[in-house]
């Protein structure tokens, strides 16, 4: 699933490891989510939304054919 995680992370000048620490996930999870290869669970998506203070749909792109 396409998302703006990499952009949001860059705005805060965070590395993947720092973001992983904030979300309490593995660094690899952050990478897989950013590249769109892994869709986070709903609880993790909410954690991401809370961290960046934005609604989920502003971070993740809802592609209908996905």
């Amino acid at each position, binding site marked *: 699933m396409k998302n703006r995680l990499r952009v949001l992370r860059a705005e805060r000048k965070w590395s993947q490891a720092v973001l992983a620490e904030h979300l*309490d*996930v593995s660094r*690899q*999870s952050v990478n897989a989510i950013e590249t769109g*290869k892994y869709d986070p*669970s709903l609880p*993790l998506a909410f954690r991401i939304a809370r961290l960046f203070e934005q609604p989920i749909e502003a971070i993740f792109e809802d592609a209908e054919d996905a």
Partner: protein
Amino acid sequence: MSAKSLYFTRIAGLVFAFLLLEWLASKMIARADLPFGLSLVAYIVPTLPVLGIFPLAINYTKNNPVTKLSARRRAPVRRYMVRLGMGLFFYILVLMVSVAALNRFDLSTQVKSILAVLTALPIGWIIWAMGRFIADPDIDEFERMIITRSLLLSTGLTLFFAAIWGFLENFAQAPDFPLYILVPVFFGLFGMVQPFVRRGYK
């Protein structure tokens, strides 16, 4: 050498050591004139490489620069390793006792059957521990998926291997393959497929 390929090489080494020792042991055990003590050793020694998985796995989760999990996320790994350790310990213990009993006493088929099931029970416990591990609420969800996929892939490959060997035995008189060895084959494959499953998410 990267940490990952080092891990892969060590796992492959353990599996190779296990299969080699198991083969040597089967040659030894097959000899009727073998003293009881030696046959006991022959049974126990092949299971020893399995213990090498502990330091490997704990070290891997602790120092792995790729995953780098928090203490809370590492707790399920620790719980699993403890359960796996208990399983292996009881497996070796029950195996020793069973082998000793089979060699010393003239047991009835019923008692032998009970011993056979008892020896396999710790294996069932280890499989249960794997189930608990992927169901652990503290596990990192991405890691859960990687491990679940690896378990399924290694289960599939083990069944595929069993099918191939089964037909080889039926069609081409291939040597008898002891069924219980499918368990370490499965564990070995589980360790080996993980880097490949991980690679798919890079």
